Each structure stands twice: as structure tokens, then as C-alpha cells.
């Protein structure tokens, strides 16, 4: 559809593009990316015929761009550029109708039915139909962008060139525009070539990406191939982290802002723990990256507050999450910043321990009860009725954990817990075998993410050893307290 062959471009003595070659298939959504000054806009202007190639050639449908008359070209290629000059108060309809210029021949040619239909259709597609009699100056940035898009669509092009179409648009307008572009490219086999600044948007919508770096094509490939941490770091010379999209197999890029390393390292220990009658709470001065199961704040997130709340063992509530949130609010916690758990264990049975050295330490809090103990190996024998959690373990790590270390921490803690139950000869009342836990245990790993990176937390790694020892001790102690209380 469009082919760029060995194109170079200079402004004076400055080389903007050197030896750029690529081709775009019909119906493809092709993204062009690169840092400021990498030649993206120049490349687009070469493809739209604003600049002429000094060397190399741009072919459109197999014919050199230079051989097209402006009017012929406009019937194939439409352009949506970033800036529009609006000196006069044209109505939306008039602006969109200008898109038909190339299709109209004679001077006094009045718009044909086909012209009018194309204009109406374009306005409907971009959702500016209701604004058609409004002056362009009265519209918002997003609406203006849609008007010019309608103009481009009224040209009925086969190729649409876009220069950062989402610039100046808010999040919902960005998404809507790109959703629409994607839909049109698929429905009408429209070829779309667009410059993107937002790497994440490009990764989500484009079929292929071209990365320009100092006027040279760095890579042309699928978003998965192009949006690699190493590549972005190299081309953009900045600190980023690649993360998976939560719903799609599309790479996403997270920026890492340059932060002043705080002179004092945050150390989490018993100073931040408060034991009240009905709950345990931890309030830390900085958000901790947390992986947890629980009622609120489950999953991965950054949290400052941690609450383990005692509820009656017969606690039943259909909307337990809402109920938990209102409990948190009543106790002056913001639910969105709080990991909340429930336990049927009495808070006075809680045990906590600070363990480790100055370089690496963990703070562990546990509440343990074994009323509904289960042997995991025989779990199939149990009904699926859930009761409030009984062994809740919190592990606070004063260190920077990798994702793998988070998962290994949980494994280590779970194994330590099972080991305690075995040692304490806790039986699964249904199967009569040794229990490995209870049916509703919860766990939480929270780390300050400061200091040297910790890659592993398996049982014999330095961190794993601390976690195993701490969990063993706390669960044992909490069980002891409970047993003591039950005897009295």
C-alpha cells in the first residue's frame, strides 16, 4: 500500500533521516515512535508529500509519490496533523465538507448527493453530527480533533496519516479515538500510519511499530518485540520498567521517576504496630508494596495501613467486603489505602516478632487459631463453607523484593506454618489426619522496596530463613496463647 525506500532527508547540513525503508500493508495500523527530534514528523511529512525526498522514494500503491497530482493524492491519502489554524469561524459542517475538495471538479460544482452523504457519514462516525452547525472555535479540543478526523474521513482515503492523534485529548477521548481508528482500519481496510508519543497506547493498538532513533530505523516489529525494556531504555535514554497489561497480552511501560533517595531508610518493626481490643493495626509512614489475600486490598498494591480484625466465629454477612469497609471507615482508615483481614481469633492471642540484622530484617505478626484446621492433602473431604480466617500471617520485609521473592516468601511462610501445625499435632477433625493449615488462612507480604534488591526468598535463602524462623515462632506463640486462654 505504502512503501518507503531508502529515504534520507537533511535540513541544511543536519541529517534528519538516513536510509529509512519500510512498507505498510493494506488495512494495517502502523505506529511510528521515537524520542523528540528522531525524525518522526519529518517522515510523516515525506509520506504526505509536504516534504520531497532528497534521496530515496515513497511509493503509494506502487506509484512514486512525486508522480501524483495533489488532487489525486488527496483521494488516497488523508492527513490529520497536530495543529490546525482556525482564523475564521467556520461551521463544523463546512470544515468537514472541505474534505470533499479533491472529489469535486469544476469551479461552480455544487456538492453532489454523494458528497453530502460522505460528509454526513463522516460526521456521524466521529460523533460530531450534532455539532454540525456550531462554529469550530466554540468546540473543545477533543471535539475539534474529531471534526478534523471527520474531514479526513470525508476524503474517503485509503491511507490515513496521523501525527499524534491523541495529543491534547483526555483519557476517555484518547481511548475512544483509538478504538474508532482500530475499528475503521479493520472494517474498511483503511491503512493507518500514526505517530505515537505514548508507548503504552501504541503497544495496545498498533499491529506493528517502527522505532526511530536519531533518524535511523532502530526496529520494525510487533509491539511485543519493540516495547522491550532494553530497547526503550536505549532509545529514550531513560529509566523505565516493562510491566504486563492486566487484561491483554500487550507490553506496557512504566516510568520510573528520579527520586531523591531518602536519607533515612524506613525500618518496619513493632513501633508501628497497635493492638486494640477488636483489631490489630499497622500504620506505616510510606506505602509498602504488598501482595496479600484478604478482604480489602487483596492482590498487588501499595498500602500504608494494615488491619486484622476480630469477628465472631459465626460472622455471616453477604456483603462482607462492604461491611469491612464501613468498619475501616468507622475506625478512621481509608479503605483504598488499607489491607483488611478478618479473623475469628481473639486479638489478645496475636504474636509478633522482629527478626534479622541491620541489613536485612523482617517483622512478622500472626494470629492463629485452628478451629477449622484442614489437611491440605485430604481437603477434598471438606465442604466448601467458608468461615472467617484463622491463621493470618503478616510479613513485613525491610528490603527490595523481586516478584519471584514475593512468591517464594509466601511459599516459605506457608511451609513454616504447616510445619508448626504438624509439630503441634493439630489434627484435621474431619479426616483425622495432621492438619496443614485452616480453611480460611490469609497472608500478607509487604516490603519497603528500599535497599539492595533481593532476588530470592526460598527456605534456605537469607530472607527465607528469617521468614521461616519468624513465622514458626509467631504462629507457635499465638497458638500457645490461645491454648492457654482456652484452658483458663
Amino acid at each position, binding site marked *: 500500500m505504502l512503501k518507503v525506500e531508502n529515504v534520507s532527508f537533511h535540513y541544511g547540513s543536519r541529517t534528519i533521516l538516513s536510509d529509512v525503508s519500510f512498507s505498510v500493508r493494506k488495512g494495517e495500523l502502523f505506529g511510528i515512535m521515537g524520542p523528540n527530534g528522531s525524525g518522526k514528523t519529518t517522515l510523516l511529512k515525506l509520506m504526505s508529500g509536504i516534504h520531497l525526498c532528497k534521496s530515496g522514494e515513497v511509493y503509494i500503491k506502487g506509484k512514486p509519490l512525486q508522480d501524483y497530482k495533489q*488532487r489525486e493524492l488527496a483521494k488516497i491519502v488523508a*492527513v490529520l*496533523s497536530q495543529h490546525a*489554524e482556525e*482564523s475564521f469561524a*467556520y*461551521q463544523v459542517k463546512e470544515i468537514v465538507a472541505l474534505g470533499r475538495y479533491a472529489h469535486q471538479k469544476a469551479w461552480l460544482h455544487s456538492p453532489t448527493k454523494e458528497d453530502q452523504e460522505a460528509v454526513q457519514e463522516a460526521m456521524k462516525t466521529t460523533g460530531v453530527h450534532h455539532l454540525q452547525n456550531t462554529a469550530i472555535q466554540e468546540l473543545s479540543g477533543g471535539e475539534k480533533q474529531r471534526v478534523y478526523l471527520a474531514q479526513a474521513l470525508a476524503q474517503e482515503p485509503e491511507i490515513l496519516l496521523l501525527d499524534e492523534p491523541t495529543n491534547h485529548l483526555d483519557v476517555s477521548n484518547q481511548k475512544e479515538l483509538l478504538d474508532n481508528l482500530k475499528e475503521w482500519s479493520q472494517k474498511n481496510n483503511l491503512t493507518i500510519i500514526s505517530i505515537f508519543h505514548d508507548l503504552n497506547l501504541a503497544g495496545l493498538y498498533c499491529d506493528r511499530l517502527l522505532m526511530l532513533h536519531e533518524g535511523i530505523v532502530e526496529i520494525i516489529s510487533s509491539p511485543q518485540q519493540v516495547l522491550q525494556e532494553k530497547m526503550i531504555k536505549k532509545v529514550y535514554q531513560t529509566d523505565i520498567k516493562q510491566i504486563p497489561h492486566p487484561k491483554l497480552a500487550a507490553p506496557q511501560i512504566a516510568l520510573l521517576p528520579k527520586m531523591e533517595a531518602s536519607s533515612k531508610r524506613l525500618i518496619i518493626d513493632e513501633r508501628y504496630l497497635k493492638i486494640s481490643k477488636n483489631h490489630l493495626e499497622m500504620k506505616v509512614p510510606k506505602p509498602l508494596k504488598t501482595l496479600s489475600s484478604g478482604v480489602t486490598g487483596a492482590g498487588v498494591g501499595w498500602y500504608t495501613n494494615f488491619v486484622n480484625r476480630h469477628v465472631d466465629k459465626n460472622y455471616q454477612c453477604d456483603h462482607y467486603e462492604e461491611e469491612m469497609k464501613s468498619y475501616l471507615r468507622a475506625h478512621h482508615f481509608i479503605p483504598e489505602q488499607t489491607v483488611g483481614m478478618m479473623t475469628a481469633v481473639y486479638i489478645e492471642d496475636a504474636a509478633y516478632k522482629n527478626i534479622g540484622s541491620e541489613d536485612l530484617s523482617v517483622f512478622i505478626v500472626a494470629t492463629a487459631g485452628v478451629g477449622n484446621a484442614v489437611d491440605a492433602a485430604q481437603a477434598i473431604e471438606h465442604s466448601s463453607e467458608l468461615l472467617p480466617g484463622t491463621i493470618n500471617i503478616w510479613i513485613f520485609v525491610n528490603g527490595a523484593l523481586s516478584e519471584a521473592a514475593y512468591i517464594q516468601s509466601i511459599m516459605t511462610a506457608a511451609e513454616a506454618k504447616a510445619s508448626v501445625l504438624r509439630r503441634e499435632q493439630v489434627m484435621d477433625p474431619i479426616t483425622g489426619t495432621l492438619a496443614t493449615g485452616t480453611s480460611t488462612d490469609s497472608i500478607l507480604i509487604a516490603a519497603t522496596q528500599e535497599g539492595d534488591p533481593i532476588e530470592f526468598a526460598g527456605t534456605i535463602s537469607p530472607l527465607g530463613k528469617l521468614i521461616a524462623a519468624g513465622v514458626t515462632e509467631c504462629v507457635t506463640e499465638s497458638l500457645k496463647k490461645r491454648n492457654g486462654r482456652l484452658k483458663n
Partner: protein
Amino acid sequence: MNLNKTGAAYLFAAFFLIFAIVIGIAVGTVAVPPLDVIKILISNVLPFKIANNVDPMHINIVQNIRLPRVLLAGLVGASLSIAGAAFQGLLRNPLADPYTLGVSSGASVGAVITLFFQVSIPFVGSYTLPLLSVVCSLFTIFFVLLFAKKMDSMMRVETIILTGIIFSSFLSAFISLMIALTGDELRQIISWLLGSVSMRGWAYIKIILPFFIIGSILLLAQGKELNALAFGEERAKHLGVNVQKRKLLILIAGSILTGAAVAVSGTIGFVGLVIPHLVRIIAGPNHVHLLGLSMLVGSGFLILADLFARTFISPTELPIGVITALIGAPVFAVLLLNSRRKGK
């Protein structure tokens, strides 16, 4: 703007022009009844004679004095207005006018040279001044474009405006120099510079008419292109407009009109600025209609301005440029103020 509104605008503009012509002819030191004016006009155009019982003196006044004067004012007004509308669209600046590019200064230089050196070209005699003015204005636009092209091969609008200002300033200084060097001719030059359509006769109409016809036909054909150009040259190109060719066409056609108007009537300010502006407010910015409507309204406006100029402190005639500036500037100020307020 829908079709009915456009139709109404044309109808209104046409009536305004006819009204201006009839009043312009009827009013003066000798008043001619408007009905007689219409009768004389019709019998001039159509083959049947219905002016039989009209006073022959009136016929004489109308045909030999008032009609050519009114027609000349109308043609000048139409030329300046359509050129103004086109330049404003092309330069994407609602405050541009036909004089922005230095064309009128060029024409003035031609006229001032004629008056200063008492030039008289054989065979054309008294038409030396307008002819030389047109020639000078065309030379000016030619040099402006040449210079702009040298500065910037893309000939962007900004470059053209800048070049126009440079030429305009230089030529104005040249005119001032001439004026300073003149003794007795001073009043003649000044009064020419202030603009007038009096005592020109049919001969001047013959001079402006060919330029007017060519220039306005060329411009009227650029309505859609001007609409596209109003959004910037790149976008116009993307829409399929052959920007370089159209731009050159508009500049040359506008300059021909301006040059010819200045040549026959001197510099008459504000018409080319205010009329397109006013029409745009009423009928919208669509150049397909703006150009023609500006012609009609501008033509009527200048006829009325001339009427005012010659009757206000009759028998003394005021320079028409003074009247257009006196009416134009405040009207423009009010328009500007209103549009700014609406914008907020």
C-alpha cells in the same frame, strides 16, 4: 449556513447595491427624482425608451456626470472588497487588507511619479497616471513575490507578509520623499493620495473595467481553495489543493484589482478591511459566498461614501478616503470589540 440564509444574503446585498446606485445618482446639487433615475438607467440598458418625459438636463447630468462617478465608485469598492476578502483568507488574518502586500504603495508611487515629473505618455495623455499606477503595482507584486521566493522557496504566507511590509515601508518613504521635494504640486499629490472618484468620467471606467473583470473572475473561482487555505497551507495541500499555483493566482488577481483601484481613485482605506469583515459576521466565512457578497456590499458602500463626501459640506468635496476612514474605523472598532466579547 443553509441555502435560504445564503440566498437572503445575496438578495439583501443586491438590493443594497441597487439602492446605493439609485440614491447615489439621484442626490446632488441638482436633485434628480429617483423614479427618473430608474427610468434613465433602464433605457440605457434595455432597448425600449421610457425616459421620454424626463428632463433632458437630468438625463445629461445622470449619463455624463453622476452615472460614471457612481459606477467608478462601485467598481473601486467592489475591487477593494473582493481583494480584501481574498487576502484575508489567504493570509489567514482577518485584519489583512489589500494594502498589506505593498501593492497600493506601488500604485501610489506610479501616480506620484506621474504628478511629480508631469509625465505624459504619448497617445494615452491624461490616462498616463492610472496606467502607470497599474504598471507600478504589478511590478511591486512581482518584486514582492520574487523577493519572498528568494527568502523562502516554499513562499510561506508569513514570508510574503513580511516582504510586503518591507516593500510597503520602502515605497511609502519614497512617496514621502517626493512630497517633500514638491512645492506647488503638494496639494495635488496629497489629494490624490487621499483618494477620490470625482471628475473621472467614462474614460477611467474603461481603464479599471478590464482589470476588474479579469481580477474578480479569477478570485471568484478560488472560493473553495480559499476555504482550504484558511486552515493553513499544509492542510490545504492535504485536502488536494495545488497550494503554490492557487496562492500565486490569488495574489496576482488581488493585486491587479487593488492596483487598478488605486490607479483610478487613489488610496481609499478601510473598504477592503471592513467590508469583508462585516460580510463575514453576517454571512459566515465561507469564501464561496464571501467573495461575491463582499463585492456587492463593498460596491454599494463606496457609492454611499462618495455621496456623503460630495454632499456633506457641498459644494466643497471631501476626499472619499477621509469618509471611509471616518466611518470605517469606528465601525471596525465596534465589530472587533463585539467579536472579542462574544469570544469570551
